[in-house]
């Protein structure tokens, strides 16, 4: 399906509306360039993202998943990002257990004023997923 030279990963990014999505917009208005591999899904809060959603994204064919929320203490919804942090701490153990490579799923804090950091995170995540190659472990194949 893909050959290694032209293969480009597709990465789903769940961004919270208040910080990280705004940070992504700021990257845009500031024209910070980053790789076009990312597909952003706006969610109210990083705490809205469940493990199930991440697994579903991988199942649908995502080569990587990024979840980004407000910095600790800055959550628009008081404590949503703390729940997210705890949830993904646990969840990464599960990913490890089912054999998903570390680095497929990333978590970051990006505020509304961090356009440059957003571009940097996307670059880093894209590079990391590229090195891992296409995600195959969870992809549902209809044959």
């Amino acid at each position, binding site marked *: 399906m893909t050959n290694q030279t032209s293969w*480009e990963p*597709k990465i*789903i990014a769940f961004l919270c*509306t*208040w*910080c990280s*999505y*705004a940070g*992504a*917009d*700021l*990257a*845009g*208005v*500031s*024209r*910070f*360039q*980053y790789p*076009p591999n990312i*597909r*952003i*899904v*706006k*969610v*109210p*809060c990083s*705490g*809205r*993202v*469940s493990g*199930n*959603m991440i697994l*579903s*994204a991988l199942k*649908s*064919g*995502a080569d990587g998943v990024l979840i980004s929320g407000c910095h600790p*203490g*800055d*959550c*628009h*919804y*008081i*404590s*949503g990002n703390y*729940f*997210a942090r705890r*949830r993904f701490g646990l969840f990464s153990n599960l990913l490890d257990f089912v054999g998903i490579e570390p680095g497929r799923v990333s978590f970051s804090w990006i*505020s*509304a*004023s*961090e356009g440059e950091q957003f*571009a940097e995170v996307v670059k880093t995540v894209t590079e990391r997923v590229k090195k891992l190659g296409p995600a195959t472990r969870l992809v549902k194949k209809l044959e």
Partner: protein
Amino acid sequence: MPKGSVLVVGGGIAGVQAALDLANSGFLVHLVEKTTAIGGKMSQLDKTFPTNDCSACILSPKLVECGRHFNINLLTLSDLISLEGEPGSFTAVVRQRPRYIDPDKCIACGLCAEKCPKKVDDEYNLGISKRKAAYLSFPQAVPLKYAIDPDHCIWIKKPGKCGACVKVCPADAINFDDTEKEHILEVGSVVLALGFSPYDPSSLDFTGYGRLPNVITTMEFERYLSPSGPCMGHMERPSDGREPSRVAWLQCVGSRDINRSCHPYCSSVCCMFAIKQAVIAKEHAHGDFSPSIFFMDMRTHGKGFEDYYNRARKEGVNFHRARVHSVLPGEEEDSLRLRYVNEQGETCFEEFDMVILSTGLEANKQTVELAKMLELKLDEDNFVKTDVFHPVSTSRPGIFVCGAAAEPKDIPQSVMEASAAAMEAGRMLAPARWQETVVKKYPLERDVHAEVPRIGVFVCHCGINISSVVDVDSVMEYAKTLPDVVFAQTNLFTCSQDTIDQMVNTIKEQGLNRVVVASCSPRTHEPLFQETLRDAGLNKFLFEMANIRDQDSWVHRDEPEAATVKAKDLVHMAVARVRGKGALPYNTVKVKKSALVIGGGMGGMTAALSFAEQDFPVTLVEQTDRLGGNANKLYRTWQADEVQPYLAETIKKINDNPRIDVRMNCQVEDVGGSVGHFTTQLSDGFSLTHGVAVMAVGGEAYKPEGKWNYLYSKNPNVHTLLEVDQMLIDGQADFKQTAQAVFIHCVGSRIPERPWCSRVCCTHAIDSAIKLKELNPEMDIFMLYRDIRTYGQRERIYQEARAKGIVFIRYDLDHLPGATEKNGKIIIQTHDPIVDGDITLHPDLLILATAIQPRQDSGNLSKFFKCAIDAHGFLLEAHMKLRPVDFATDGVYLAGLCHYPKPLEETIAQAKAAAARATIVLSQDEVPAESITAMVNEAKCTGCGVCVTVCAYSAVSMDEDNNVAEVNTDLCKGCGACVAGCRSDAMTLMNVGNEQLMAAVEAAFE
């Protein structure tokens, strides 16, 4: 009872902002604009600094809102002829010139302009291109109605001669019998937002302007860059249409110049304007591009400006500290040769393809005439006279002024003043609020829940912002192939009024029940499009945006194919997401009509008084035992008005006002609730509910340390500016024994640790030096500075200081002044770049102009109201250009030093602006509350209680009888923590459920 309506004169960004703030807080507004459309100078700009936002894109929603606002009576082609009466009850006569095209009939099809045989210079494009005698000034014009120019129309000149437009107009809208109309308007107050004129450099022979075709002004270049301009956004030079690669900007053309026919003041905006153009031009360029800016002092004194300047230098914009002697014809064809003297004193010649003159801002002629008619005082530069303590009040009560008509200033400052003027104009009419207004009624919403989805997709070119990278047509064609998409089209500007109106018709005609707009960010434009859905009888939640500009075309500039693929995915994801959405209720919350103001400095007190004088109760919280904040330490303003008497008067007003509850030695401990109904717990045990909050928590002075210490707190003769102010306030020191004083500027500012300019210190230091010179004319004074930033009319005191013999010596970060001490005597070593040598000074007094920094604890305070802070620790407003006093969190506003360093007049204006914005909420009985709330599927719920634990708002509880969770939608904020936490998939967030989100994710891979 005063009148409940206000006259706003001038339809630029300031007038539009004032009109919207007034109309949204309960007043009928007559907005008088002299041209055919509102938008003013801002609409002519391509991009705006420091965010590089597309100017038309951020302005357009405001213009559209203004154009269709029920309580704004828009009078274009109109002039104020006379004004009689007194504050609270004026009679204004407005004369409206004929448009010759009936706006009620015109459908803006453009056939009249197409067929019109008469070509004339297009003044909107500053004469760079031609338009017809029948014309529309720009594509997003509001009102979007053509007009006929009577000075050029063949028929109007010689009736019976042409009439081509009459023949082609399908709407029968041409009316050559149209006549002048007089409107007699009864209003309570007046806001003047008269704008400025760009300085005309024709008389400055050394620039070559008018003689050499490739010498143009910054405003002209802006039209060259603009996607709606004559070159469709392609950078071309006038003589041959070739893309220039060596471009020079000449600063201070017409400004800071006491010779010639120029202006002595600084025009404030041109430095950033030029840097922005250099950065944007570099972006437009296809090959090598070398921009050079020739300047005297680089004045990047606003929020985010110094960062922008530093970034421009890194990205290869060349900065030359030189005033260009002359622009001569170059050796290559149509090129230009600049002659200037460099910093080493050598005469240099350099060749350029194009030269851009940073022409200043001046008061326009109409302002002068109108001021005469209204008997308003003008200042010596012909700007409308105001004073530091009343920054938006004119000399005539009931008439207020905002924007560049009062002094050259940038867009955020104009917007701030516009809101402040709205505050003043509305405050005096408060009893008549909602007396003359009408309430907007939406058409009955169509019930779509049983319908099969019929999705319409609108893909935006955004001028060339999107279409120069993304293949917009192929995205549109792709959208048509997606499930349930029954309609797709592209638009030049989806947010322009004609497209909006057309969208309403399309929704109705095509029977659409879901809409996707693929354009910019929902953060800026979703409200506009949602309003459009409501106008078309659709529930506003049946909408989704695909962000193919900010998150696609702007960030993948060099990868058009990948960007187009991504745009298709994003549109597909939006379609998938909107497909599963349903109509939601419009929840509201009852407004508690009182305000909380945090911070008892000048900003907080001004805001508190603004509320109280409109009869809204206020709680003012001050953490110390004294009101006044930093203003307690200030001696006088740059206009030489003493601060302490005004401060004392303000404090007295606060203490005497029964509407204001002042709480000293008090802090905020906890905040709950949201706009309309916050609940706040204070440290003194008191708790209150309030509808809005203003953060005016101030800033603090940097304490000189490390290499910036300069013997501070070691030698008794070293002081900060504020300490000198204190001596002057106390009146103890006469400085008669001080033979020599040295000021060091930028102590702790504009360095990597604090990379911002503190804005006020140049002016403050120079004013202090002048005061010292007044007290002791024999004193020798030396100012060691990096750039003198006496922006606007503050430049006058810089000139005064030089005239008084105060010596200015520049330093840079490679040659910092050094301070040593010998027998208690201070020795200053510094490098003089003009003589290129070191000099030694022996001052009796060393004064440090120290940085202003955010308060250490303002970050903690901001958390209570979920307000963002920027990278430097200042509070971050919702939008740096157009929402300078709002936070992204509704119902919370900001003013003063916590936003950015600023002088007293700007803090006062900003505090009034914050109160004006908050008054919009307080003047309503109810405001919209969260509609996207959580919902329990009781059949699936196992009663485990995780949702109850994770909810930060106590909105979820257990129904003990049935052992299922239940949601109190009044408390739910729609974060979705409970949904993610639910183990049995019983909890969902309306329209943001797993089904909608996962449909979007899956769509990315189909």
